[in-house]
């Protein structure tokens, strides 16, 4: 495209140069014509109009160029301001000398033309003309006298004799023709001796005849025929009869050839000079007009060429600016066509193209690296998202960079708000995050630096709404180029469940051993106590018998109590084979609730969803579970006159994973937060009575059914136990053992 532009630009320049040459040539011809007064220049007007139209064409082009440049200026097109400056400068540079030359040329032209018309020459021509007249006048006076003599001799001559007399008289004179005109204006006689005259006599003008009749004669140099000069004398011939008008005699005398030529020469020169004098102003105006046209042509061509040159020269600059803008906007594929090869602009264009090429390659490399980095980051995010351990990364300024899903799961959704903030701001996010961050921060600031270990680990515990949770945190300082490293990565594992399981396992072992070791001696102790009472009650009297009875009763009661406790431990420690039967949970809950009907002051509310389906359950153990929960709920409201328990059943979860949820709510004081995490451990209880194994057994039953249990406090007060039992996926239980 650029080559087309360049070729087109050259073509227009060639055409304009041709037009310029033609105009200059035509102006030269015009100038030549204007200075010559001959009449061959019939194309003068045509050339003048053609030049005017050509100038109009160039002027139109200039106006269009100017308008276009103005538009570009207003639109702030790249390079337009420089082009305007260049054009203005070029025009001024061209205009000043041209105007100077023009003014001087006009002045010299006027002076030159005025110099043609010298006063002395004019005076000399006037004098020559007057001299010619005087010379002719002398001849005229002589010839007038001769003619008067002839007229005197014709006085009294009759008309019939007039021809003879006139011929005789004219023979003695130099007249080439004599004509006698009678009173009636008829030619009476005429004589002609020259062949140059017409056959018909030359009749004088009527006014001359009239004046002659009245006595006033005439003498003058008159042209007769084509170009011949004659001295004409018209004089009256007096009549004898006073009543008759005078006759008139006209005599024509040829002027000598030499004198005639000289007179004609003088007249021709005089007329030419007078003509020049008369045409002086039009000639001056014509010449100035031609000169002005040449000036206008020069100026307009200079202006047009200024536009042309400015555009041609500014074209690479314009493209460079446009290219720079494009590069600034991110288009690094911008290349500029190199029009000029060896000048500075060509070198600049080459450098620009090389620069954009380098930038493009560098950007491609950067983009490739960035894509690889993004890919690796995505891969890492995917890995971090899939692992169960929470991962938090900090930079060298302890600002949280990344937090994976597991960490959010462990420390709550609020942890996301810590991204981009310093870890010391953890307390501002949430209580749980604050507890974690404080411990990590203290460890980061004191522990790791003190030991100068790059890898460390620690167990931390935090109290959440769901209770105390135990975290195992490992930290590692990332390698970096700085002295402080590039950051720290924290790996968090929630070991609450594991610790709980370990405790459960330990308690189960303890319970099993206790049951085994304590239960065996209890029967002999009880039997021995009964034997002691039977054997010694008869031997003792009065108070001793009574005292023995009380003691043995105490032993038996305590043994019973121990048996109950041992049975409870046995139940906790035992892992019986579940007898799963497809059961309607709502029916089971109603059945258990019926046992509490009639209990004074107790109000148990059932909110059972009819959509709850049957699922395989070990009915006795579930019944025991519900009993325990109701019992616990009632015991927590022992100080209330109207304890209330509400049991809710519903189905929840996604279509692919449905769960039965049973909630038992009371209006008691709720759970203490410190115990909330350990509520299901044996001997963790806030009650003064009982074995402390109730909730532990409840949890065990739930877990045996593959479910989960959660204890929490209700917002409106009271405690809430939430149990969830999963429906077997894809299996429709019809009854019998599961």
């Amino acid at each position, binding site marked *: *495209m650029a080559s*087309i*532009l360049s070729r*087109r*630009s050259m073509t*227009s320049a060639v055409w304009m140069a041709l037009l310029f040459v033609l105009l200059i040539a035509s102006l030269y011809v015009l100038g030549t*014509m*204007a200075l*010559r*007064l001959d*009449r061959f*220049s*019939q194309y*003068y*007007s045509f050339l*003048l*109009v053609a030049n*005017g*139209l050509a100038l*109009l*064409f160039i002027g*139109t*082009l200039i106006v*269009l*160029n100017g308008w*276009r440049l103005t538009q570009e200026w207003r639109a702030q097109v790249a390079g337009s301001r420089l082009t305007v400056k260049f054009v203005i400068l070029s025009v001024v540079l061209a205009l000043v000398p041209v105007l100077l030359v023009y003014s001087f040329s006009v002045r010299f032209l006027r002076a030159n033309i005025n110099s043609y018309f010298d006063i002395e020459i004019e005076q000399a021509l006037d004098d020559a*003309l007057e001299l*010619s*007249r005087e010379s002719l006048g002398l001849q005229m006076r002589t010839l007038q006298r001769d003619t008067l003599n002839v007229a005197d001799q014709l006085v009294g001559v009759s008309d019939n004799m007039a021809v003879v007399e006139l011929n005789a008289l004219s023979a003695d004179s130099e007249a080439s023709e004599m004509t006698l005109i009678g009173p009636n204006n008829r030619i009476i006689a005429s004589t002609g001796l020259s062949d140059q005259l017409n056959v018909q006599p030359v009749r004088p*003008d009527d006014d001359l005849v009239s004046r002659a009749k009245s006595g006033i004669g005439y003498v*003058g*140099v*008159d*042209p*007769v*025929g*084509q170009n011949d*000069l004659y001295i004409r004398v018209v004089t009256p011939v007096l009549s004898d009869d006073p009543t008759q008008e005078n006759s008139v005699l006209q005599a024509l005398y040829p002027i000598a050839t030499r004198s005639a030529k000289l*007179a*004609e020469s*003088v*007249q021709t020169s*005089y*007329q*030419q000079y*007078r*003509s020049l*004098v*008369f*045409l002086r102003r*039009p*000639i001056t*105006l*014509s010449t100035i*007009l031609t000169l002005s046209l040449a000036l206008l042509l020069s100026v307009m061509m200079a202006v047009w060429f200024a536009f042309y040159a400015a555009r041609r020269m500014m074209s690479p600059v314009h493209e460079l600016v446009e290219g720079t803008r494009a590069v600034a906007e991110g288009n690094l594929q911008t290349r500029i066509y190199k029009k000029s090869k060896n000048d500075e602009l060509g070198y600049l264009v080459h450098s620009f193209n090389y620069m954009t090429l380098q930038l493009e390659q560098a950007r491609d490399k950067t983009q490739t690296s960035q894509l690889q980095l993004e890919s690796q980051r995505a891969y890492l995010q995917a890995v971090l998202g899939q692992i169960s351990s929470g991962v938090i990364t900090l930079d060298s300024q302890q600002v949280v960079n990344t937090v994976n899903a597991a960490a959010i799961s462990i420390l709550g959704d609020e942890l996301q708000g810590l991204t981009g903030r310093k870890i010391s701001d953890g307390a501002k996010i949430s209580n749980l995050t604050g507890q974690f961050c404080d411990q990590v921060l203290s460890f980061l600031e004191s522990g790791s630096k003190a030991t100068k270990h790059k890898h460390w680990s620690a167990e931390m515990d935090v109290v959440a709404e769901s209770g105390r949770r135990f975290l195992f945190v490992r930290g590692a300082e990332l390698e970096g180029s700085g002295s402080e490293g590039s950051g720290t990565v924290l790996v968090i594992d929630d070991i609450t469940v594991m610790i709980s399981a370990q405790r459960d396992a330990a308690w189960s072992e303890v319970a099993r051993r206790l049951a085994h070791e304590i239960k065996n001696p209890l029967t002999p102790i009880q039997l021995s106590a009964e034997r002691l009472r039977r054997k010694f009650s008869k031997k003792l009297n009065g108070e001793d018998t009574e005292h023995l009875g009380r003691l043995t009763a105490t032993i038996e009661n305590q043994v019973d109590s121990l048996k109950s406790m041992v049975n409870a431990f046995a139940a906790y420690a035992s892992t019986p084979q579940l007898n799963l039967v497809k059961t309607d949970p709502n029916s089971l809950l109603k059945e258990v609730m019926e046992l509490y009907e009639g209990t004074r002051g107790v109000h148990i509310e059932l909110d059972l969803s009819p959509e709850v389906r049957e699922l395989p359950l070990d009915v006795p153990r579930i019944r025991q579970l519900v009993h325990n929960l109701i019992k616990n709920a009632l015991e927590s409201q022992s100080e209330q006159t109207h304890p209330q328990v509400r049991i809710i059943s519903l189905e929840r979860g996604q279509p692919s994973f449905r769960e039965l949820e049973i909630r038992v709510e009371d209006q008691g004081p709720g759970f203490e937060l410190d115990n909330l995490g350990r509520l299901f451990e044996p001997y963790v209880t806030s009650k003064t009575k009982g074995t402390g194994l109730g909730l532990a057994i409840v949890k065990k039953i739930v877990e045996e059914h593959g479910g989960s249990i959660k204890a929490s406090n209700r917002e409106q007060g009271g405690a809430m136990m939430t149990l969830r039992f999963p429906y077997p996926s894809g299996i429709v239980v019809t009854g019998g053992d599961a």
Partner: protein
Amino acid sequence: MAEVKRSRRQMLVGVGLTAAAGLGSVALLSGYSARLKSERIDIQSAVLREVNNRWLFDCRATIDLPARIQLGLESGVPLQFIVSVKVTKPVDFWPDDVLLSAKRRFRLVYYELTRHYRVHSVEDDKSVNTRSLLSALDELGSLNLLDVTDWVKNSTDLSDSSIAKNASVSIALDQQYLPLPLQHLFNSDWRLASEEFVWPLS
């Protein structure tokens, strides 16, 4: 490519504007020129008749020279008047058929030495000398028995009295004969012409 189109469009616009301006200028000049025409030649009568197979033209006109032209004449500028005689046959829906088209030239010159004027018929090579401008103009305006037979294009139709014809005559100062500086487009002082005198010719 857009640059090429813009350059071509600009050139075309330039040519178009120039043509429009040229046409406008020509129209203005024509109007101006027509307005500048000084009607100081008044044709009072004209007759064209056939005598012995020769077509003779008589005309009577009054010519009033403006002072500027009089001054030029007395300064030695020769004047040439063109008498244009035309006979046309009207044709429906078509340009008129020209049966005769004659142009006769008459020159008027002043001689300072003898202080007289000369009226010279170029085609006939005949001259008449007068001692006053009035006489010269009277001579110029009195055309008698001017033979225009040589300019007849269709003598049959011209002689046919049954055909309706229009004859016209106009007298004008010949601009081309004037010295070049006086021929300028806007030089109104030297524009002298009569209105076309038209009469039916039977």
